């Protein structure tokens, strides 16, 4: 790798770190300045709304299967239902994820045998 390429890698790395770090420092300073006991109240309202919505957007993008065929969408739907069913029963993080992946995988494997 040329030295110019190394500089590009380092610039991308430092830039990405700053995009993650500087807003944290800004918010910490704001929280300290406002000096409120409950930090959530010192957070701008738009930011508190945007957090959950960003996670919802991540869910939306990650739901799209790699191959856009009927089997993949069916597997996604069944995986989501299995995930929700186990979450409803257990209210945990790990088991619903395992159940969702197992259900998704079962549909994909079954389809690969049948089709």
């Amino acid at each position: 790798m040329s030295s110019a390429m190394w500089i590009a890698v380092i610039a991308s790395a430092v830039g990405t770190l700053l995009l993650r770090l500087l807003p944290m420092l800004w918010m910490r300073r704001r929280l300290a300045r406002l000096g409120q006991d409950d930090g959530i109240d010192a957070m701008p309202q738009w930011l508190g709304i945007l957090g959950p919505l960003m996670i919802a957007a991540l869910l939306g993008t990650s739901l799209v299967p790699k191959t856009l065929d009927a089997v993949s969408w069916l597997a996604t739907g069944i995986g989501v239902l299995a995930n929700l069913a186990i979450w409803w029963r257990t209210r945990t993080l790990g088991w619903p994820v395992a159940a969702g992946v197992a259900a998704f995988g079962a549909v994909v494997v079954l389809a690969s045998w049948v089709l």
Partner: protein
Amino acid sequence: MSQQAISSSPRPWLIGIREAIPLLGGYVPVAISFGLVAIQAGFSAQEAVLISALVYAGASQFLFVGMAAAGSPLWLVVVMTLLINVRHVVYAPNLAPWLTASRGWPWLMHALTDQVFALAHTRLPQLPEAQRLGWFTGAALFAWASWIAGTALGALAGEELMARWPLLGEIMPFALPALFLVLVVPRFTSRRWNLALGLTILSALALTVTGFTNLAIPLAAACGALCFQAVKCRPAKHSAHTQGARHE
């Protein structure tokens, strides 16, 4: 992991690692793909691993090696890489109210990816203050290590792995939407949030299907935020019901 178990556990970093395990399902196959793509683009295995360790941002790494291999000007490669990562600016401020006074937090922001943010945004508020730094360190460093290890595996043996277990690369990434779903579902707490979250999920899905993958996250979140505000503005006569709850 139950709330009681977390409160009594003496090793929060271990809980962080355990709760970050679902991330591996999404991280490792993508990291293997990145290692493979980087080798095919002319980078060495060590270089691919270093890019993963230093930049640590999935989509932008693929763009970086792709544009670099195509001979694009390097300043443009850097600008495009950073543009894709701009969405990260809202992550840390959302976690800030739950960060303790430790000097370790700024360094840990290197590992604040989409997935780590989603996990931390749900878990940090539930943890006692004394356990937050340990939990985040465990979860974030474990995810980072898995990304680096996956890249190394992909660079050294990616082709063979993909040929031997072609379905694995298709199935394991479902762990990510499965995890995000578990993190989002408890937030469906009112009509206002239901509409905003539902619209965000559907618009992100539609944008991704139509090929606007990189724009999908910020645009969909913006749609959801507009919906959230619109629902608040419309039924002014019901405003008494919403008072007392910050975001309803």
